[in-house]
C-alpha cells in the first residue's frame, strides 16, 4: 500500500503550510527605468526562484507495518513521520525543495516487507530508507539490503544476535555495512535498561515469562543472564505464545507456574495485546508479587484506567511527561496534528529519524549518499527524547539510541509516572504487595 503522506498533509487543518516560494518583501512595480540595484535584486530573485523550481526534491522511502498484527506500531510510526514531514517542509524542506516520502506497508511480514523494499529500490528509485519494525521481517530483508545498499536508518528490528550461539542477528549481519544505521536500541540494550531497574528495585527473585518469538526469546535469555550476574535468582523462565501471534490468550498455566515459585517480581516480555489478559489473569489467580514489570513494545492506552493496572511497571521509550522541553514541544505538536498525545514510543522514534535525514541532507548540501552518511556519522540530532547521535554499540559504530533511552514507568492512580532512571523520575517507585 502506498500512502501519499504529503498530499494528505497538504489538506490537514492546523498543519503548517509550506512557505511561499516568492519573496515576501514587496517589489517595486515594473518599469522601463529600473535602477541598477533593482535589476540586480530582480535578477537574483528570479535566479533563486528558478533554482528552487529546478531543485530536485529528495524522496525518502518509509517502511512501516500499517496493517496486520503490528499495525498499532506501524500507525504510530506513520503519525510520527507525518508530523516530522509537516515540520520539515514548513521549515523550508530539504535542499530548497519540499521533502517527499513514499510510505510502504510491510505488515511486519518478511515477504511483504521484501516486496515493499524492492519496489522502493526498483520502481521508486529512492536512495534513503527509514522505518522498519519486527526482527523477523528485518532478517528477511538483509540479503536485499546488501544487494541494493541504500542508506538505511532502521527504527525497528532489535535482535542483535549478540550472545546467541548458532543464530546470526541483525547487528551481526549488518555491523560492517557502512550504509546501515540502526536507530532503535538493540535487544541487549533493552535488557540492560530493564535489568538495571530490576536489580535496583529491591527484589531478590524474578519469575520470567516471555513470548516465544525472536522478540521475547533472546530478550528473556539475556535478562536471565544479567539478573543472575547481578546476584538475583530466576527460579523460572517460561515461554508462551503471544496473542498477537495467534496465542490463545490463556496465560494461567504460565502464571500459575510463576506463582508457585513465590518470586518477588514477575517480569514478562510480550506484545501490547498481551497486557490486559496477562495482568488480568495475574490478579484473578491472586498472584501478588512485590513488582509486576512488563516490557512490551507498547501499552494499550486505556489500560491506565483499569483497576488491575495499579502499581504495574513497564519499560517504554518515550512518555509525554518526560521532563525535557523537547518532549513537551513534540507532544504539543503531535496532539495538534493528530488529536491525541503520542501513545507509542515508535512515533517519537519515527519523528526523530525523519528529522535526522532532513538535517543531515541539508548539512551535506547535497543528496549524495556518501556526503549524507558522513553527516549522519558526525552530527548530533534533536529528538523528543533529547539529543542523540550515531555511535558505538557492541558490534556496530552506527547505533542511534542505547539503553539510556529507556524509561521505567509505573501506573499510579491512572497515570504513567516515570520511576526510573531517577534523573527523569516524576514519582517514586511504589511497592504494592
Amino acid at each position: 500500500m502506498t500512502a501519499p503522506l504529503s498530499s494528505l498533509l497538504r489538506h490537514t487543518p492546523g498543519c503548517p503550510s509550506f512557505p511561499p516560494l516568492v519573496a515576501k518583501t514587496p517589489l517595486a512595480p515594473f518599469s522601463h527605468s529600473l535602477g541598477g540595484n533593482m535589476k540586480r535584486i530582480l535578477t537574483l530573485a528570479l535566479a533563486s526562484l528558478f533554482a528552487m523550481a529546478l531543485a530536485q526534491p529528495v524522496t525518502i522511502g518509509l517502511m512501516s507495518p500499517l496493517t496486520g498484527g503490528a499495525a498499532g506500531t506501524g500507525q504510530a510510526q506513520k503519525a510520527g513521520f507525518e508530523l516530522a514531514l509537516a515540520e520539515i517542509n514548513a521549515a523550508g524542506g530539504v535542499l530548497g525543495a519540499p521533502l517527499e516520502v513514499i510510505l510502504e506497508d510491510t505488515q511486519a511480514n518478511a515477504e511483504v516487507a521484501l516486496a515493499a523494499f524492492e519496489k522502493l529500490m526498483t520502481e521508486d528509485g529512492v536512495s534513503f530508507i527509514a522505518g522498519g519494525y519486527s526482527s523477523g521481517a528485518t532478517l528477511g530483508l538483509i540479503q536485499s539490503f546488501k544487494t541494493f545498499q541504500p542508506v538505511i536508518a532502521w527504527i525497528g528490528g532489535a535482535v542483535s544476535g549478540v550472545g546467541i550461539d548458532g543464530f546470526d542477528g541483525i547487528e551481526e549481519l549488518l555491523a560492517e555495512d557502512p550504509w546501515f544505521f540502526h536507530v532503535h536500541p538493540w535487544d541487549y540494550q533493552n535488557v540492560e535498561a530493564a535489568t538495571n531497574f530490576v536489580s535496583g528495585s529491591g527484589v531478590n527473585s524474578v519469575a520470567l515469562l516471555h513470548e516465544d518469538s525472536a522478540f521475547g526469546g533472546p530478550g528473556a535469555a539475556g535478562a536471565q543472564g544479567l539478573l543472575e550476574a547481578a546476584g538475583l535468582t530466576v527460579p523460572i523462565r517460561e515461554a508462551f505464545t503471544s496473542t498477537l501471534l495467534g496465542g490463545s490468550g490463556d496465560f494461567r498455566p504460565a502464571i500459575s507456574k510463576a506463582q508457585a515459585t513465590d518470586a518477588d517480581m514477575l517480569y514478562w516480555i510480550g506484545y501490547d495485546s498481551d497486557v490486559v489478559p496477562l495482568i488480568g489473569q495475574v490478579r484473578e489467580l491472586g498472584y501478588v508479587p512485590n513488582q509486576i514489570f512488563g516490557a512490551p513494545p507498547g501499552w494499550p492506552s486505556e489500560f491506565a484506567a483499569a483497576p488491575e493496572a495499579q502499581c504495574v511497571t513497564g519499560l517504554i521509550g518515550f512518555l509525554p511527561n518526560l521532563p525535557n522541553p523537547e518532549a513537551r514541544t513534540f507532544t504539543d505538536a503531535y496532539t495538534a496534528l493528530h488529536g491525541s498525545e503520542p501513545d507509542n514510543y515508535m512515533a517519537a522514534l519515527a519523528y526523530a529519524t525523519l528529522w535526522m535525514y532532513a538535517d543531515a541532507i541539508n548539512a551535506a548540501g547535497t543528496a549524495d549518499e556518501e556526503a549524507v552518511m558522513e553527516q549522519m556519522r558526525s552530527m548530533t540530532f534533536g529528538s523528543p527524547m533529547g539529543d542523540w547521535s550515531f555511535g558505538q554499540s557492541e558490534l556496530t559504530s552506527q547505533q542511534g539510541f542505547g539503553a539510556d533511552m529507556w524509561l521505567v514507568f509505573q501506573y499510579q492512580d491512572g497515570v504513567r509516572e516515570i520511576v526510573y532512571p531517577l534523573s527523569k523520575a516524576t514519582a517514586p517507585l511504589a511497592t504494592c504487595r
Partner: protein
Amino acid sequence: MDPSLILQAIVSGVLASGLYALVSVGLALAIGVIGIVNFAHGEFFMIGAFLTYTLFVVFGIDPVLAVLFVAPALFLLGAVLYRSTIQHVLSAPELNQMLLTFGIGIVLQNLALLIWGGDPVSIAGIEYRSVGYRFAGISVGLVSLVSFAVSLALVIGLNLALTRTRLGRAMRAVAQNRTGAALVGLEVNRVYLVAFALSALLAGIGGVMIAVIQSPTPTIGLAFTLKAFSITVLAGLGNIRGILAASLVVALSESLVATLVPNGGTLSNAVFFAIIFLALVWRSRRTV
C-alpha cells in the same frame, strides 16, 4: 508437580472451552445449514468485540448490557452480508464461495482498522475482569465462569432450538435437502438468511466476551476463524452437537500441555492442530 497446578489446568481448560464452543457453533451452523465455509466468521467476532468497546467508551455501556445491542447489530450485519453477497454464490463452485468470504473478512478487517486503528483496545475500569474465587488452591475467574456458563447455555439452546422449534426444523430440513424443502413450501433463502445471521450473532456474543477478557485488535479474527474451523472439523463438518465435546478436548489439551510441559504455552497451537490432524486421519481410516 504440585497437584493443584494440574487441577488448575483442568479448571482453566474447561472454562476456556465455552468460548471456543460459542465461536465454533456459529461456523458449524453456516456450514451445516447453508453449506458454506465462512472465512469471515472470525471478523464477526472481531466486530462484536470492537462494538462492545465503542459502546463502553462512547456511551459508558457495560459489556454485560452491551450484548443486548451487539447481538442484534451482528444479526443485522450477517443478514445484510447474506443478502448482498453470499446469496449470489450459493450455486457457485466452493472455491468461489471461500474466496468471497475470505474477501469479506479482509474488507471487514480493514474497515475496523480504519475506524478503530491498529492498536489493541481494552475496556478499562471494569472491576469484575480480574475477580477470582479461590477454592482449595484453585482459582476460578468470574469472567471466565460467566462466559463459560453463557456459552454453554447458548450452544445447548441452539441445539434445542434446532430440534424443537419450527424454524430449527426448517433449518435442518433445508440442510438435508434444499430442493425437497423448497418443494414442501419452505422459503429456503429466508432460512439461509436467518441461519447466516444467527451465525454472525453467536460470533458477536463471543466478541463481547473477548472484549472483556483480552485486548482485541482488528486482526484477532483470523486466529479464531482457524480455531473455529478446526473445532468444526474435529466435531464433523456441520455437526453442531459435537462442538461442545470437540471444544472441551481442544481446550483441555491446550491447558494441560501448557501446564505439564516446560514452556508448554508455546505448544498450544501445535497441540490444537495435532488433535485436528489425528482426528482427520482417524476418520479417514474409519471410512476406508
